[in-house]
């Protein structure tokens, strides 16, 4: 890989987990989004760059902070989802129209435990899952078009704020589940999606926050605050690999489903590309290191592949008003 181009953002990126959203429409250039405080900066190739604002709640005291943004690609439509201290905003994929707004229960006076939504994933064909600071995961049923989004279920298995949610991007082996949710304590929950979501298994945390998670062919790849990447067998909940990957807190993981390439970005200024595979004889899950990039003097807060094979990727960093793009060497 080598550094290709640099896209200029109107404002710098905030230090938030998974702070880079990428939409890769087939045979069109990708669109990008990065959160800065209360706004989301969108860069697409249709029209000028756009900025979306977090929606205020009942009190108009100050605009709430955004925590994350992600495009949710469902078979019927693509929605852009924003999470904030007040709730969940869903837009059409170009950010032009708001489709739905869900307000969280925000107490009138700030309580010791902060309230916010965080963790976004499309799942089960017509659902979008959003995590909250209470540990609850909201499951929204998305109609093929229009604004009639409904809250279908609330999953309450986590006791700590949700950090990230990921749906199966490949083929789940039998009984492995197709959704994983992660929280501040490092606990991972595995679910099977449907009209009713079922909890299949829980992997307890071991003292380190899981800030980012991906699920591919029954392999959970999780990034932790102590710089480790761990691979878990989704079906059995057993650990299959442990990598001392970074010297600081991991902020972003992404997976390229066609090849099993894994991207990790952390506060230590490094972005690593790994390759996941399954050994057909031993059935062991393997992970190899492919490439390292050092983004000088930058704490990486977002990293995503820009194509399903993982030949290109993009990176954001705290205080950086750019999106750095990397391509084949």
């Amino acid at each position, binding site marked *: 890989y080598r550094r290709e181009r640099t896209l200029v953002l*109107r*404002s*710098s990126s*905030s*230090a*938030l987990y998974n702070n880079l959203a990428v939409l890769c429409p087939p045979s069109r250039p990708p669109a990008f989004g990065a959160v*800065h*405080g*209360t706004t989301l900066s969108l860069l697409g190739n249709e029209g000028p760059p756009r900025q979306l604002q977090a929606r205020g709640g009942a009190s108009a*005291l*100050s605009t709430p*902070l955004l925590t994350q943004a992600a495009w949710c690609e469902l078979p019927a439509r693509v929605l852009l989802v924003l999470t904030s*201290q007040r709730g969940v905003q869903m837009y059409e994929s170009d950010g032009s129209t708001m489709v739905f707004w869900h307000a969280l229960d925000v107490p*009138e*006076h700030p*309580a010791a435990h*902060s309230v*916010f939504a965080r963790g976004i994933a499309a799942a089960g064909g017509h659902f979008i899952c959003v995590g909250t600071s209470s540990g609850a995961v909201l499951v929204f049923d998305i109609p093929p078009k229009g604004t009639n989004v409904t809250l279908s279920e609330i999953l309450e298995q986590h006791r*700590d*704020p949700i*950090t990230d949610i990921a749906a199966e991007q490949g083929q789940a082996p039998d009984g492995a589940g197709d959704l994983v949710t992660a*929280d*501040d304590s490092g606990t991972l929950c595995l679910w099977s999606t449907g009209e009713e979501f079922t909890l299949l298994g829980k992997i307890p945390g071991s*003292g*380190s*926050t899981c800030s980012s998670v991906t699920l591919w062919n029954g392999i959970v790849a999780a990034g932790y*605050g*102590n*710089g*480790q990447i761990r691979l878990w*067998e989704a079906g*059995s909940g*057993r*650990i*299959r*690999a*442990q*990598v*001392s*990957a970074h*010297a*600081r*807190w991991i902020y972003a993981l992404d997976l390229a489903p066609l090849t099993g390439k894994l991207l990790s970005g952390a506060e*230590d*200024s*490094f972005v*690593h590309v790994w390759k996941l595979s399954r050994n057909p004889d031993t*059935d*062991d*899950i*393997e*992970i190899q*290191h492919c490439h*390292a990039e*050092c983004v000088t*003097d930058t*704490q990486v807060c977002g990293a995503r592949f820009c194509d399903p094979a993982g030949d290109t990727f993009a990176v954001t960093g*705290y*205080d950086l*008003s750019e999106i750095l793009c990397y391509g084949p060497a």
Partner: protein
Amino acid sequence: MSARTLPLLFLNLGGEMLYILDQRLRAQSIPGEKARKDEWTDVDRKRVMNDIIATMFNKKFMEELFKPQDLYSKKALRTVYDRLAHASIMRLNQASMDKLYDLMTMAFKYQVLLCPRPRDILLVTFNHLDAIKDFIYDSPGILNQVDETFRQLIETYSCLSDGEFQLIRQTLLIFFQDMHIRVSIFLKDKVQNSNGRFVLPISGPVPWGTEVPGLIRIFNHKGVEVKRAEFTTAGNYITPQREGSFELYGDRVLKLGTNMYSVTRPVETHMASSSKNLASQAKENIVPNPLAKEELNFLARLLGGLDVQKPSGGETGFRLNLFMTDEEEEHAAQTRPEELSYKVINIEATQEPGRRAELSRILGELEVAEPRPASAEKGEDLLALMDGL
């Protein structure tokens, strides 16, 4: 986002302020017998430090500070330090106060950014408090106040998880976002680049609890390790020796938050900001915060109501200059870029009768002795309490 961020922000910025004031006071002090009426002596310096620290650690103020609440806006916080710096016989011109605030904020931004673990922000805070205790070691009353705050910090923060500390850190980083003021001492130490961004080393000890990167371990389906592999990167990390102490007394190990100034290392800032940052900074000022003015009124009243010592000699009192000469200070005031001005509103200076009426109304309301019911505005409770001091 975290409602527990303000005490850490306030105490660490306050600590940096004290380091700078102490250094400047020492640099400008004259031995007692030789000093003229308007020159600083060691006795004056100690008095200033004592007065400011006593105000900062006032018990009721601390109690309110520790209540869960959102961070103040940059403007509101700047006003608090404005008042705090003047809680003594010392006077600072606008230019010096601006420079002081720039140095304080860039120093703490640096410390937050370079903290190995989010939890280490607490160690940085303890470093500041340890140094503050050193400033007033011979004033048992004030020492007691500081120890009380120390205990409250331990009580409030020791039980927080790493995830919660990271949220606090993220909240602080959002507060400091887009600030790239160049500080001479940072530039000299090669800790900051000439574009105002901090140098992030990729070598040295890894945080406590993290392993040196490089090892891959593979386990089979029974959980038995079956393979090991290694990878290398440009980084050059080592394992840390020991963890810092989170107790009332102890070796913090971490150097961030200790006093980096000394009499021989003067403090200067460069005011140039690149055009890229202008947009985001200007934007921050434009977004209207309906409460901003009220906040300023409240907070000014907050610390304005404290027992401010009047200077004994002449109207100007004991003025402290953060620059090397008066001419430099004057020049800095005139050439400060517009977008970096803090636009601090000085309440006493307003002449409009309308504003005075508003202020009187607020003062009148604050005479209420019993606790105010459900107040939603930021800082209002703090304010009401300080009124009674």
